[in-house]
């Protein structure tokens, strides 16, 4: 009797999907088309957009390089970075105690963990521009409202990821200290946080990049920074100035990402 079973070298490349899998794929396609319809997707508009974009580019280039404009925009960019740095640093510092309460099995019980994590989810669910609007109402127009928006946004981001980092860190050192009678707070301070430090630094640098990106548009709602210049440029059809703002934002954001990437490699690379 010959063995008709294919050897493991002759197995089919693709498997026929089961009925449920097939229905799943079909449903996925329907959802994608439904979303495209809801988003007003139009091939006609896509086809007609290049001439309009070319018209905008023709009116925006060359960018406005007038020294007075550059000086004004430069100072607005400095203010943008001040909002981003101050907000990110305060947010990162406040995230540590919040994350300690959110992380499972560290210092707080499961109910506290869940409540804090739900609070962090709420913070993340509200976009930074909406937080800026809230703080403009609360503390008035200006960069302080923007900074507060960045602080709260950073807590939502870092609080969650710091908590995840601490939960994922090697439990061995913490166990060794627990076994010798150390308190939970001492174990967290001496084993969990130092063990999570590389991940904290990496997350904080991402938070800083995010803060810089966010702070460039907070001005759109009057929360300080260079965003207001972008809005005014478009409102007044001063496309060359608007283009200058866009290019400045791009240069600064890319610069921050490069510096942050270098710092991340430098700091985490030391960890063996």
């Amino acid at each position: 009797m010959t063995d008709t079973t294919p050897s493991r070298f002759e197995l089919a490349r693709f498997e026929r999907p089961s009925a449920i899998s097939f229905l799943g794929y079909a449903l996925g396609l329907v959802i994608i088309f439904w979303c495209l319809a809801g988003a007003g997707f139009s091939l006609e508009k896509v086809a007609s957009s290049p001439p309009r974009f070319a018209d905008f580019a023709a009116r925006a280039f060359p960018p406005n390089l007038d020294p007075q404009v550059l000086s004004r925009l430069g100072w607005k960019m400095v203010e943008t970075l001040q909002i981003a740095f101050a907000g990110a640093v305060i947010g990162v510092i406040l995230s540590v105690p919040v994350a300690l309460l959110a992380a499972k099995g560290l210092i707080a019980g499961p109910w506290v963990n869940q409540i804090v994590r739900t609070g962090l989810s709420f913070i993340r669910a509200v976009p930074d521009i909406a937080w800026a609007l809230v703080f403009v109402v609360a503390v008035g127009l200006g960069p302080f409202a923007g900074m507060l928006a960045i602080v709260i946004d950073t807590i939502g981001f870092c609080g969650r990821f710091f908590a995840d980092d601490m939960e994922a860190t090697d439990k061995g050192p913490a166990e060794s200290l627990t076994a010798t009678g150390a308190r939970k707070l001492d174990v967290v301070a001496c084993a969990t946080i130092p063990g999570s430090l590389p991940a904290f630094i990496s997350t904080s640098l991402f938070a800083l990049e995010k803060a810089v990106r966010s702070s460039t548009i907070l001005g759109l709602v009057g929360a300080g920074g260079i965003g207001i210049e972008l809005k005014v440029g478009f409102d007044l059809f001063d496309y060359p100035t608007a283009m200058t703002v866009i290019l400045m934002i791009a240069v600064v954001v890319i610069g921050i990402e490069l510096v942050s990437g270098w710092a991340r490699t430098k700091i985490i690379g030391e960890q063996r």
Partner: protein
Amino acid sequence: MRDTLSSTISSVTDLLLRRQAAPDVLTEQTGAAFAPVSPVEIEACAVSKTFGATRIFSDVSFRLARGEATALVGANGTGKSTLLRCLMGLIPTSGGSVYLLGQPTNEVAGREMRNIRAQVGLVSQKHNLVPRLSVLSNVLHGLLGKHPGIRHWSHSLAPQSSRETAMQALERVGLADFAHRRADRLSGGQSQRVAIARAIVGAPKILFADEPCASLDPSAGEDVMELFFRLVRDENVTVVFTSHNIEHALKYGDRVLGLAQGRIQLDATAASLSSADLRGLYD
């Protein structure tokens, strides 16, 4: 498979019979299974542990006297490390009781539990040092049970007396010159010696060691075991260590407990056993 299992059980049964026949150097024959001459420091009474529906071990009972070094041996997956964690109260037992220094660990919690643990040290297979901190800070952390608080979080903040105690512990393991080196810049053997210094810095009455030389090469492993037992024997510390190294179990243990098929299948003095006897547990 079945043959192997039955031969293991029969060899272990033979050993148990031999153990009952042989006088135990650390116990008196008073009618009870074990009546230690020295005060009992660790006692397990019908301890069992399950994870979900999986039974790891059950009905584990023994009493370990002060100054006794006990080797816990058994094949992979028999629950040696789990039993060690149950003894330390790091994970709850599913049944039975554990007494450390006369206190029932499953009945105490919080400060009371920490007070018991302050008299205990742990040396793990993976050393479990905090990599980014200095060697001295890592050793100082061994004092946190007795001196909680921020002053023992780092060598920069520590009081002079604690720094001296930690330096003495490092001196005893021969690494005083490495006090300010980062822990992740040490070799495996050096890391384990720092872990030993951290375990002994608080002058514990009981030391648990979970395969202390499993991650080291044979020579470094031998050095670490020599050092570890030289230090603890001087202080009359009670030691429970797990090991896959049969020679280590017989050389450094006064007593050997063998776990197999979820039970203590062997409980005998090391002097009454040979390597061949222990190999049965690994078949």
